[in-house]
């Protein structure tokens, strides 16, 4: 059971202003009252070398051979006095944001073991066909982000597209620091937020900071009050800083774990003592499903009760 550690700020960029450091940003966020923070590493699909580019060594540019390693931050209780006085410790997550233009980024992502070490995965999509093709593939991610400059001419949102993302446990991020930084970005982010309200009733929305300096961070109460501007109700605003962040965390853990497997055994004399003694347990014994194949291959051959109707637990086993 993953405990709720709200309030959440799931976007503190590692590339912050030159006058500050990520540690200062994290300290400030914890002093404002946040308990869970995600350090965000941003990469773009264009940064990854294709085979042609790797052969052409004369090419100069900001290219990456592999995803950057997840950042680590060591904190002492002096860095979070507010939480320490309540006997709590902060939760520091790592987040990877990939800006994509088509599905080719999956080639680099699937062969990278470093990319899979991140706790959260966010995708920044530039167009509707790109998002549609991503949804049709088997790729799973946690957060859908956007840049204010790509709002006009970017994804053309429909209710169908929105709810396809919701069904895949994708959460939509609204960043509040661009509202503070620039008035043009403010209009763009607010219009995008209202689009989410029109097509999706502002479901699965989280508020994050994307703050480049400590001055751009705001307390959870202030961020929740931004709901009025963003087209959310008061409750949705509070949830966007609290419970929805918990939902993202749980969804991310589930995505990394993969399809959950259940082991089903017949109760016999050899394992009768392992049956928990809870009321009503004896009534449920007759309802236990004995037809599904056990998760360990080969075991069914020993017991002789292989069910050909159930799907095998691992692909290719059939």
């Amino acid at each position, binding site marked *: 059971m993953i405990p709720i550690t709200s309030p959440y700020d799931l976007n503190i960029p590692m590339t912050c202003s030159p*006058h*500050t*450091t990520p*540690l*200062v940003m994290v*300290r*400030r966020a914890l002093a*404002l009252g946040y308990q869970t923070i995600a350090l965000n590493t941003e990469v773009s699909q264009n940064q990854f070398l294709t085979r042609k580019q790797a052969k052409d060594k004369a090419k100069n540019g900001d290219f990456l051979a592999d995803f950057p390693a997840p950042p680590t931050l060591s904190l002492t209780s*002096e860095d979070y006095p507010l939480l320490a006085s309540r006997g709590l410790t902060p939760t520091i997550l790592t987040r990877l944001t990939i800006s994509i233009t088509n599905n080719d980024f999956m080639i680099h992502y699937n062969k990278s073991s470093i990319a899979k070490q991140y706790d959260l995965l966010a995708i920044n999509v530039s167009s509707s066909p790109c998002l549609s093709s991503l949804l049709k593939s088997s790729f799973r991610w946690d957060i859908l982000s956007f840049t204010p400059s790509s709002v006009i001419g970017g994804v053309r949102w429909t209710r169908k597209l929105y709810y396809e993302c919701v069904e895949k446990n994708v959460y939509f991020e609204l960043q*509040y620091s661009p*509202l*503070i930084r620039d008035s043009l970005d403010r209009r763009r982010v607010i219009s995008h937020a209202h689009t989410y309200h029109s097509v999706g009733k502002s479901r699965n929305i989280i508020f994050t900071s994307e703050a480049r*300096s*400590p*001055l751009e961070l*705001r*307390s959870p*109460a*202030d*961020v929740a*009050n*931004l*709901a*009025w*501007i963003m087209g959310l109700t*008061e409750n949705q605003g509070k949830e966007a800083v609290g419970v929805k962040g918990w939902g993202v965390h749980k969804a991310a853990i589930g995505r990394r774990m993969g399809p959950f497997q259940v082991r089903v055994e017949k109760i016999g004399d050899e394992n009768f003592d392992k049956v928990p003694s809870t009321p009503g347990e004896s009534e449920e014994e007759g309802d236990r499903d004995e037809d599904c194949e056990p998760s360990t291959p080969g075991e069914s051959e020993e017991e002789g009760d292989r069910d050909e109707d159930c799907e095998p637990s691992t692909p290719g086993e059939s």
Partner: protein
Amino acid sequence: MVRFKKRYFVVEFEQAQYVNQSKEHFDLEPLNSKDIDIANAVKDKVQELHGDFGRASISVGFKVIYANTTTRLVIIRTRHGPHRLVASALPFVTKIRAEGVVGQLLYTGATIKHCQLFMVRRQTRQLEMAKKWLANKKMDQEKLKEKIMDIRQIDPC
């Protein structure tokens, strides 16, 4: 006649120069502004975000007072309803009389009594922090307590 409901926001304004610093500090320096300057800053920001409609909505029953100048604690009173406009504009107030500030909403109350209870508890914690941070400096403990625990009341009407 039904009562006019109000909302009281307890806000602390921190100086931007200290927020940007990476060193730990405890700031007891008051802002270089008065109650009216904070009120104008909030009203201007509401006008910027919500236009003339927003500014006009909040103007009736709007009052700002310094609860404590030393710790820069401010109480903002608004009518219930337009209070949402003020609450949504508070994160965007970054300057008061050309001085960079960062506002933090500490408490939203429907009565002065509960705001007062909250402020007394908070100022007591601030006093303990001040004694801890300023232990090296020779400060008169009584004067420090007087400065921090002096909470001005806002007019309920």
